Structures are given as C-alpha cells and as structure tokens.
C-alpha cells in the first residue's frame, strides 16, 4: 500500500547536479517505504544547509528550522508524540559544528530519533568554508593555505558519549544506505547515520571515496564489539561503511519518561484542570 509515489514531492531539489544528497534522499524514501511507515506519521526535521533542504523534497511532515537546531526540535516532536517516526537530516556543519552539543546529549540520553548527517566535509550552502570534519591541509574559502584544524571523528565521538547506534553510509550506495537507515529507525533509541555525501562543487571526493569504500558486513565486523567499532571508525585503511556499533539493551529516553509520567503523550489534546484540582493546588502552600 505504501509506495514511493506517496513520498514524491512536486518540489524539485535545488542541489547541484551530481550532489551526494540526491542519493541520501533516494535512500531515505526507500527506507520509509520498506518499513511501511506512512508519510503522515513521519516527521523530517532539518537545519540550514544544502542538505537541510531535504524535507521539502519528500512529502512527509517536515520542519526546516535553524542552523544547528534540528535535534532539539526533533526531540520536542518525539516527546510530544512518540508514535511519530522522527528523522533529522542535516549537514556536518549543522550537526557536528554549531549543533553538536544537542547531538551529543541526545545520544547520551538515548533519545529515540534517527539523525542522518550528510557529511561532505565542507559548508556547502555558504559556498565552501571549513567544517569540523574537513581534513587537515584542506583548502577551503576560510583556509586558503590549508587547514590547521584537526578534524572531528563523529563516529568515535558518538561512541564516546554512549551512543547506542553508530553507522556510516555512502550516498553513492543508496541501497546499502537505505538498509542502514531502516536499521537506524528500528533501533531502540538514538541512531547516528553519518553519510559520506560528497559536495561536487566545493569538495568533490567522489572518486576517492568510491575507491576506498568497503562494507563492514563484508569485513565480518560485529557491531556489538565496541573496541573493534572504534578501530574501524579510526582506521585509515579504506573507508568502512555499515553499522559500526549497536546495542539494543538500553531503554530509550522516551521509554524512561513514559515509565514515569505515563503514556498519554502531550500532543494528544490539551488536558485541563477542573475546579477542585485547581483549588487544591492553589492552597498547596498555605
């Protein structure tokens, strides 16, 4: 019943021809169709950046907010209505730069959202400045003589803060990416999907990535092995994609909350107080 057409938007992506983000969009749609999640129960939340333009290109509910702030918006949505599938789609600047604190804390709380980062190692929309994942020596508009900034490794970072699902995909392999996204959505809690999604205009690393990329599954990686996962995240021998680390034994923050304050979620209608209750609370201190 749920098919790709239902997710089709009449808004044409304004990405540059060849941009990696097309692959991510395709993979996300495929994943939602495969999981049979209806578009109206899906909320795609983004920040600001080329990648963050994604929500308009997939006909689900969407929130195209501020640079760096999609994660807290997504948490608000999820806590307000835990029945929704909430997905963040944004860039490396958005999620690993200005917005990284939100990502880190969502990961450690194990908030039940999926965060897809279109990691192109550059600030695309603002025309090519250094990002937190830019490489040492990389020439950008803000590092004309080559970067002296040590890059962030988002995978080991999220493992370090206790992330329970850490993965990386490649926009050039949308089927594989769709599988990762499906697993991420099904995951109990916070899931990071870092996607190498090259920017063909400001830092085109397609050929290089294609050469280096290999699948963790093919290499026999066991995602429950944190130690190996860290090694793989930090390896300079090729570029592994797949699920680096995963554990399903940690309750999500939303489960924990519901244990405490029940299952009637905030979005389900306002709940007012009757006169007696009001009076009782009014006299609480006297």
């Amino acid at each position, binding site marked *: 019943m749920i098919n790709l057409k239902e997710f089709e938007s009449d808004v044409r992506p304004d990405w540059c021809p060849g941009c990696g983000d097309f692959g991510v969009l395709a993979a996300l749609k495929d994943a939602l169709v495969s999981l049979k999640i209806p578009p*109206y129960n899906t909320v795609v939340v983004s920040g600001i950046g080329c990648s963050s333009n994604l929500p308009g290109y997939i006909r689900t*509910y969407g929130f195209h907010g501020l640079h760096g702030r999609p*994660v807290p918006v997504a948490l608000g949505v999820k806590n307000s209505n835990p029945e929704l599938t909430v997905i963040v789609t944004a860039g490396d600047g958005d999620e690993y730069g200005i917005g990284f604190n939100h990502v880190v804390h969502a990961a450690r709380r194990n908030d039940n959202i999926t965060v897809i980062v279109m990691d192109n190692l550059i600030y695309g929309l603002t025309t090519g400045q250094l990002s937190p994942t830019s490489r040492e020596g990389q020439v950008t508009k803000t590092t004309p003589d080559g970067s002296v900034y040590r890059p962030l490794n988002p995978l080991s970072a999220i493992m370090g803060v206790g992330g329970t699902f850490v993965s990386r995909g490649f926009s050039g392999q949308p089927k594989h990416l769709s599988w990762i996204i499906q697993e991420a959505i099904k995951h109990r809690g916070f899931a990071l999907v870092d996607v190498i999604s090259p920017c063909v205009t400001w830092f085109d690393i397609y050929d290089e990535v294609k050469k280096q990329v290999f699948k963790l599954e093919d290499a026999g990686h066991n995602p429950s092995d944190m130690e190996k996962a860290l090694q793989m995240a930090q390896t300079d021998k090729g570029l592994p994609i797949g699920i680096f680390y995963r554990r399903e034994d940690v309750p999500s923050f939303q489960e924990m909350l519901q244990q*405490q304050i029940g299952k009637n979620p905030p979005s389900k209608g306002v709940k007012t107080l009757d006169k007696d209750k009001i009076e009782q609370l009014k006299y609480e201190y006297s």
Partner: protein
Amino acid sequence: MTKVEDLTVRLGAAAGDGIQSAGEILARILSRSGIYIYTYNGNQSVVRGGHVWFHIHAGNKPVYSMGYGIDYLVAFTQQSMDEHASEVNKGGAIIYDSSSVKPANIPEGIKAVPAELANIALKYDKYPIMKNTVSLGILAALMGIDFKIVEETIHTQFGKKKEDVALRNIQAATEGYQIGSKQERGKELTYDYSRRLPFLHSNYSFSLGAVAAGCRFYAAYPMTPASPIVHWLANHAEELGITVFLAEDEISAINAIIGASYAGARAMAGTSGGGFALMQEALGEAAMTETPIVVVDVMRAGPSTGLPTKTGQGDLNMMLGLSQDDFPRVIVAPVNANDAYSMAIRSFDISDRYQVPVIVLMDFAIGDGAYITITEDFSPAEINRGKLALQASGDMLNGTWFRRYQLTEDGVSPRSIPGTPGLMYVAKTDEHDEFGHDVSDVLAGLKSALKTREQMYEKRMKKLDYIRKEMRPPAVFGPSRVDLTLITWGSSANPAREAIERLRGKGISVNSYEFTDIFPLNQEVEGMLKQAGRLADLEGNYTGQFANYLRRETGVMIKDRMLKYNGEPIYPAEVENFVMKVLGKEVR
C-alpha cells in the same frame, strides 16, 4: 498590645540557616489566621553564609508589597542586627539570638527581645536549625496568634517527613511561645482563624495557570529566579501528566518546545534574561514557522550575570528587539501571582489563536519567594486551539502539499498536526509561499516571488493588528481624578498600590495605570496618556525602558521617572517620597 491594620516581619540570617522555610511557615500561620500577606526573599547568590533575609508584609486587608519599615525583626546573626535594626518602626520589636548577637543600632521605642535561640534549638536536635521554630513561637506570642495555629501549621509543614520532627519542632515552638508570652504583646492584626487564605508566588501561580491551560510540555535549563517554575512542574509532573524536559541548554529547551508545539502540544519554556538571550534566534523561528509557544522570562538584576538573586525589570528592551528583523510577538507582564494565573491561560490562548510566540515578563520581586495572598478566583480554562485543520479532504490524499501558510484576512492560517493523513507540510524558517515552499532559493528576487514575499511578510505582521484589539489598556488603580498618575508595568504596580493608599491618607490623590499588556499596545493607550493629567513613571531599570517605549509608541514623554536599579524591590515609601517630590510637596 496595639491593634494595627498591617505590619511587617523580617527574618535575617546566613544562607543555609533555613530562613526561607521559616518565612514560609510564618506566611502559612498568618494565612491560616485569615491574614493577607506579601513576602520577599532577600537572598544572595551564595548557598551557605553571607546575609539573607525574608520579609513578610501582613494585613487585615490585601497587601501587595513590602509595606513600611519593619515591625518585627528576628536577627539570627549580628549582621542581621546591624543591617536592619535601624529600619524597625516605633512600637516594633527585635527578637535576637542572644547567644551570638549583640544589640546594636536599636532605635528608641523598640522592644528588644533577647533569646538563646540556637541553644534552645539544640535541645531538640543536634543541629541548631530549629532556632527558626523557636523564633516563630516568640513571634506568634508577641503578635497574639493562637498557638494552636502554630502547632497545626508545623504539622502540615512536616507532615510528609517524620512525625517525630514535627513534634520536636512543636516543642521548640512552644518554648519560644512561652518566652514570648512573658513579654508585653506588640503590634497585632485582627485574626480570623476560621478563614484560611491561599498564597502563591507568581512563578507558581503562572505554572498552575499553564497546566490549567493544558500545557503538557515544559522545557528548561535552570536559571534563578525562573527555577521555581521547573521545580513546581517537575514536582507535579507525575500527578498532572506533564512532560518536563531538562535540556542541555536554553537553545535546546526552546527548540524542543517549538518541536512539541509543532507536533500538537501546548508547550512552554522558562528562563531568566541570560538564558532568554540565547533563545532569541528561536523566537524568530517560532514566529516564522507560525508555531505557537509561550516563553517566560523571570527577570533578575543584570546586566550580564549581574545580581542573580536580586530583582529588576530590565529585559523589556530585549523583548522589543528580539532577534533579527521584524516578526510578530506578544509581550505581557502580570502584576503578581493573582493575575499570573489567568495570564498564563490567556498567553496560551493568544499564542494558539494567532500562532505567535507569547513572552511573559515576571521578575524576582513577585517570583521566587515573593508570595502573595490569592484573592482572585482561579477558574478552569476554556480552550480554543485556534484554526486547526483536522482532516484532509479527499483530493489532498494524493500528491499535494497542505497549504499551511494560506493567506487569510487576519493572517492566521489553519494548521495541521503531524500524524494527520493528507495534510503534510514543511514548517519553514526560510521565506516561503503558502505551501511552505522556499522562495529563498531558486525563486528569490524573481518578480513573482517578490509579491509572495511581501504578502507573507504582511500576513505575519498583520496578526498584530488583530491582537492589538485584544490587548488590554492599563487597569486604573486608585481614583480617577488625581494630581498625578503613576505609570507602572508588571510588578512595579505593587508598591504603587500601597503608596497610593498611604498618600490618599495624606490627602494626596494619585492613581496608577497598571500596564500588563505590553506589546502590542492597545490603541486606547495613546488617548489615555494624553488625557491623563500629570504623569510619572515607575520602573525597575536604569533607562526607563517602558517610558521610552511609550514615547516611541505614543509620542508621550514622561519626564519624571523613579528608576530603581540597585537590585532591591521598590518600596512603597520610596514611591511616596517620589510622588511628593514630583508634586513639589515636602517629604515628611
């Protein structure tokens, strides 16, 4: 014994001595004796040590502010004696812990009541914390309060803790009461033990109002003096089914409530000035995506970190100039805990019906620890969620986006809630068309898009025209024909009320325009100001932000201003002196 209409009590100690809780017990005792109260928490940004005090103004009729001077001072420390003794009124009394405090600066005509408060307390506990209770016993005796009420209140206060603690406290209080009874009685009020009056401070009553309005999601990062809101809500979370999200910072808090509201919940955040500064970018986000939210700023004395536990009204300019470029917002400022309840309900109502952010300005002078007797009726809320699209028509179920930002007469468009089939849309902070599609990228600057841009800008801003009509002109406190009209906003109304009463007694006729609906201003305001006689401004900041704002909006310049910026609450006596000066009368 002197029967009086109102009196004040001040307890002075070091932080950590439990002065606030003692003050609360006393407030409770008085309220259960049918007495009206206002309290103030003179605390410091220190957890132990220093000098803190708790002030209670109590009366047979409603009181609003600090009252005049001190009638009963309880000095647990030397510093309390040194700082406050000179302010004690004629006929007043000073109770002090004679085991550590020496009498000093005691004006004439004041009774000194030495008592070994700490030593007595140590009889009942291994820490001298019950010295508070001893002093309350003495106070009750001096004030002529029935000990039964003291006993009952202590039972209520410690009810949840061990019964044993309550009993030992009662013993301590009894010993104090005996000491007090040996003294000549002091000033006393007219008690009515059959009447128990409720009291709350504005943080609590606003929280209560918010929950009554159906707020189900609150997000915050703690900040004095807004923290009591999150404490109250967290304490009632299980009972009332509120989700309280303790965010990693204020930016997360406000974005979370925007997400929660977008997904259908009534949602709120609260903070103080510094945290609000960080939230500003997201206020623009809420306005642009047309997501209803309520955000409370409980102001404290700034600038910057400033005096974190002291009061001020310095954040108005920030609210008028929020974030980049123009967008609609509503600013309200309740006077005290009485109207804060209904203001919460109104805030959610306006926010939902116009899909705009509503900002609530309160301050320390009516917040944390500043209890006031609730005389208002707190009615259940009538809920109007505004224009909601609840169900898609058949043709929406295949392939179209919902026209979320439809152009309408009043600028408000029906909104849909995620989870509703067929009404999908993307909420946008980029400029967008009626469908929420960007006009910022491939369309920006095209002739057709310029029109869209203008229409969308006008759509958002014209909400203010409609809201303006719902905004209330200032309430007039006092007589209508006067020598001087005081302009107050939010909490500065309270000391004015007391001063006006006193001035009336002196034959000076003053009233106050109490502004609670700050932005947009009701259209009658200009006329009211122009028709009023002489005007004088009263506010808790350095530049007279509200008076400047009134000039901007109405052209009316108020030259005479009493501006207080030292962090202390405005005292009615100061208002009185100010009025006398403005009117050219001799002070005292």
